[in-house]
């Protein structure tokens, strides 16, 4: 799941927002930086991180902490 966008590196180009297949990322209210708006939508596809020209995005390979249906 997407973990962070480094504000100091993000130049607000919007490429990550265009790349996200779902709806995870948006621009902030001033329209200057990308923000993680709907983290639960993230499907860990890495599209944003792969396309970010400034290396500002870090996607963690773990999808989420999953509930355990079975107790061993």
């Amino acid at each position, binding site marked *: 799941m997407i973990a962070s966008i480094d504000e100091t590196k993000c130049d607000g180009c919007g490429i990550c927002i265009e790349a996200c297949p*779902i709806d995870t990322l948006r621009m902030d*209210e001033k329209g200057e930086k990308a923000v993680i708006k709907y983290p639960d939508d*993230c499907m860990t596809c890495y599209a944003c991180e*792969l396309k970010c020209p400034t290396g500002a995005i870090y996607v963690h390979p773990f*999808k989420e902490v*999953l509930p355990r249906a079975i107790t061993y």
Partner: protein
Amino acid sequence: MTTLNNSTKTIETDILIIGGGPSGLWAANRAKELGCEVLVVDKGPLDWGGMATLSGGDFDAVLPGENVDDFVQDLVYYYDGLCDQEFMEMVFANSYDRLKDYEKLGCEFLTGPDGKLKGVPQRGLDHVKLYPARVKGTGGSDMTRGLVKRADELGVKRLGRTLVTDLLKNNGKISGAVGFDTISGDFYIFKAKATILATGEGGWKSGYHSHTACGEGTHMAFRAGAELRNLEFVRVWNCPTQFAWESQTTLLPLGARFVNARGESFMEKYCPTIGSKSDQHYNVIGMAIEAREGRGPIYFDVSRLNLDDSRVVKPQSGWQVLNYKKLLSLGIDLFTQKTEWMPQLHQTCGGLVADIEGRTNVPGLFVTGCARGLEPGLCIGGIHLCLTAVTGHRVGAIVAEYAGSQESPSIESDEALEYKNRLFSYLALNTRFRFFNNH
């Protein structure tokens, strides 16, 4: 009623294709080649190409010299007799041509030292094989890039980030659809002589525990009177508990297996003939029995993996290699350790009823790819990329011929307006939930 300053746009085309994944793009390119005006509308990013983008790019094909009937017989056995034989015969009969088309679009498949395509047998079957991408990691995105490039060369019109919500009907025929731009909120009316539904969910993305395919295509077709089938069947999938991994359909035939907490390979007990190479539904049953009897959790064990070419299974490019490197940095290596895996609900087998050429019971509405209700249990590695290509190409030609015989449709403006009002009525609710405020 609405607080949204949105406009209404009307676009007329010969053929409207809902869904810009592989089957939608194949249909679009074929229909455009045959002289029709084509518009593809997708709710995702313009060029992303649906779920194929994240797939491995594996493709099932019947090579020259092989027999289509042998492949169909494999599936009759594999589906416990539920195989739609006429349909699968058509898919397999055209599979090699589409594989060659993918090569022309710039995709490369794995070859052996003799230069011939190198296949991986599937599910212990005698004949069915998948042909992996030459470099593991970007096979799916290479396919998408090729299809999108071809669509642009041909002049297929495409619209991204636009969600189609309802089909329009006039005199009993589908006359187009309505939808909205998910970013600007603009409302769209699409007028078309024929509409192709390509909203199915290929086999990959739910492996990431998230999904964009939420069934609106099937639902809108149902509301327009389309007959559905197989909705009582769901497909399951096995995946790591913590992270995404593509794909087990190559690893299992090469010696990977599921083991329980005691390290026992249990599938030989439940499926003595082929063990873990069995269909994933059988693997899930085995996993469940083991866990209930106190022998969980279940691990994926690659210690017996027999590799003469690690490029087949080890990610080399794209998101897959990034994923692999990150996991290594966390001390997780799928190729040297046992990793905990679990079953997961994958997707529905349900969809529209259609003849083998994609005609539904509703005039003017056609279906391609996995939006069609497929056989319960259809999940051999590489099958979805094969059948999305074959059916897209085939349906594109059928619909081009149909559209050529149709008059330009008229739209009942009241109907479109009613859909618009219903769609935007939620915005009049007194809520703090704000739409579109960041644009």
